[in-house]
């Protein structure tokens, strides 16, 4: 009986991927000057189905099946934005974004700066990112550090369905260019399906979320590793260590305040990113809080990151190089026992 009783609610729950589609759909309805450019996003509805049904609804002139050219997807998006459009550019995999690199870092990111504010670039580049699925070198990347190091771009990475929708809607209304990292391993994860907030659900950029409160150590991450941090926090609890978990959600601009408030309480921090260690975003977080909150720290901050390797294919290799809950627990115990 109880199963039957919960069914209507379950049916209303939306997964991460559906939340993204709703965000794009709603913004396309609200903003008649918005267009979508990407590979296979129209007839097919996207390799993963994020844009399913949108071309039928808005027409092939607004949801455009682009030739295979990430550079042209971004470049044409820049041109359309220069002429008054809001543009969503889909990268079929975020790994492919490197093919559009020049257009993103030299053309798009700098446009507002170069023109002393004459030109806005409301362009959102979004696509599936992240490892843990056996995607190997070119379907697993988290290359957000490239863009965090390119002034003029905002960088966003949601970890829940509600955030996926609220943050994407916020990005599509921002007058600045954004690179939006979707975690493809979370797209259809059932336990992440939730009842999305009703109405115009917009989450402001630059605000981190505290996913679990704790008092002994702060675990900071984003994307898929938020869940590894939560699992690590469970394991730490069994050892009597109370971990606070912060989900950054937005990397640029970074919510320093929330992290500093947390370490003022815990005095210890571990930062986790899925990208390689050297010049990864975890290093940036630690540099910032060390500059701003050194007096709070009772132990040297620790990073848990991918090894400085590409993401290899088969499970044994992939697991070896990536962060996981065990590695996070080890790092947390190290700072707690310092």
């Amino acid at each position: 009986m109880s199963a039957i009783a919960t069914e209507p609610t379950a049916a209303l729950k939306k997964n991460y991927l559906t939340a993204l589609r709703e965000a794009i759909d709603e913004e396309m309805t609200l903003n008649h000057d918005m267009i979508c450019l990407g590979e296979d996003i129209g007839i097919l509805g996207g390799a993963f189905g994020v844009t399913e049904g949108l071309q039928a609804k808005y027409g092939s002139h607004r949801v455009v099946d682009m030739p295979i050219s990430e550079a042209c997807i971004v470049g044409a998006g820049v041109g359309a934005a220069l002429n008054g459009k809001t543009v969503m550019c889909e990268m079929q995999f975020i790994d492919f974004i490197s093919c559009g690199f020049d257009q993103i870092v030299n053309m798009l990111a700098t446009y507002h700066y170069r023109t002393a504010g004459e030109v806005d670039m409301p362009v959102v580049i979004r696509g599936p990112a992240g490892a843990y699925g056996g995607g190997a070198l070119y379907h697993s990347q988290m290359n957000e550090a490239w863009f965090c190091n390119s002034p003029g771009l905002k960088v966003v990475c949601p970890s829940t369905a509600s955030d996926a929708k609220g943050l994407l809607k916020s990005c599509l209304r921002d007058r600045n260019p954004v690179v939006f990292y979707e975690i493809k391993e979370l797209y259809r994860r059932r336990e992440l399906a939730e009842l999305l907030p009703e109405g115009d659900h917009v989450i402001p950029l630059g605000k981190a979320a505290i996913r679990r409160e704790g008092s002994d150590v702060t675990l900071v991450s984003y994307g898929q590793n938020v869940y590894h941090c939560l699992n690590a926090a469970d394991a730490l609890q069994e050892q009597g260590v109370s971990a606070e978990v912060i989900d950054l959600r937005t990397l640029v601009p970074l919510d320093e305040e929330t992290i500093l408030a947390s370490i003022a309480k815990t005095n210890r921090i571990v930062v986790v990113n899925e990208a390689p260690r050297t010049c990864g975003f975890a290093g940036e977080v630690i540099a910032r809080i060390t500059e701003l909150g050194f007096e709070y720290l009772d132990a040297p901050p620790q990073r848990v990151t991918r090894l400085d390797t590409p993401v290899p294919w088969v499970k044994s290799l992939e697991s070896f190089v990536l962060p996981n809950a065990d590695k996070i627990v080890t790092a947390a115990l190290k700072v707690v026992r310092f």
Partner: protein
Amino acid sequence: MKVIGDSALSSHTATAVPAKKNQQKAETAKLPREALTKEDHLEILKHLYLARYFDVRLIKEKKRGNLKGTLYSSHNQEAILVGSLFGLEPNDWISPIHRDMPAFFLKDARSGLNNPNRMGMSIEELCCQVFGKVDSPGRARDNWSHIGSKSKHIIHSTSMLAGTIPVAAGVVYADRLNGGKSVVLTYNGEGSTAQGIFHEAINFAAVHKLPVVTIVENNQWAFGTPVSMEVPTEDVADRAKGYGIPGIVADGQDVFDVYDKVMQAVAYARAGKGPSIVECKTYRAYGHGDHDDDRANKYRPADEMEEGRSRDPIRVCKEYLIKKGYLSQEDAKLYHVEGKGATQTANEDFPPDVVAYLTQGIDFALKSTEPPGEEGGMWVFREAR
């Protein structure tokens, strides 16, 4: 090197848009230049003087220490700019690159060079940019050839050159969505046609039949590399075949040939038939930039340079005007700059109104200031409104 712009080449390539099918028509149809009045012809000559004098004057200003950056001379290539811009509609878009500096003020020059509402950049704004002054449209934030103006429909280039073509395609894609009829002219050297984005962007434009006219200024040298090491075909315009679009070769020394062929491509684009490539054969008179002038005289064969500089576009234009009866032999001799090197001309060699126009811009720029240092940290992001 192939003889550029001889009459045989011009007639061979006069078949512009779509070449073979309309061959007969093209022979009997009127050329765009035939709609130009005598006054238009004389204005074109004046625009050539303006472009030449811009270059000549900036060399002088650099010696005086006023110029901030490298000078990329358009000497000997002015017919391409003047011929391609003269027939554009005010609302059309352009994306000039480093060797096209006169294009910024020649765009929509026919609406009056000092008309503040025209869809081209004022000489004051342009001179502020080349002098690195705060009154430039980009407040001197990027190097001197990288300016533009959204409101004047001039796309801002980067140093990645062909990287501007997809942006141009996006601009007219949006324009078409809005029901507009604008055309965009993108300028490129033959060297940047080797960039992947050149292909990617024109391919996209061709798929959507976007009004993108790509002008290739084939001046035979991409910095220190000859065209034979950049492009495997005799004509860069042959690249058009792969996109199913017209590839047209124009005599880049002959302003009226450039005018005809660009106008045919523009009409084709505006009619919704799609993009074209117009290759204008010319020769780079000096170095890649002024830093390269001495070396360029060594890495290029002397006979090639002599031949490449032998058909000064101002002389070619004057000869045509004389033939048409629009210019007397005496008047043609009045301002004699043709065939003279960039440092061999004096102000007296140019029409006084040409000198006055540039002087007006330079005087304004000299009075402007460098931007305050703290502006270096501004406009990274658009602040929320």
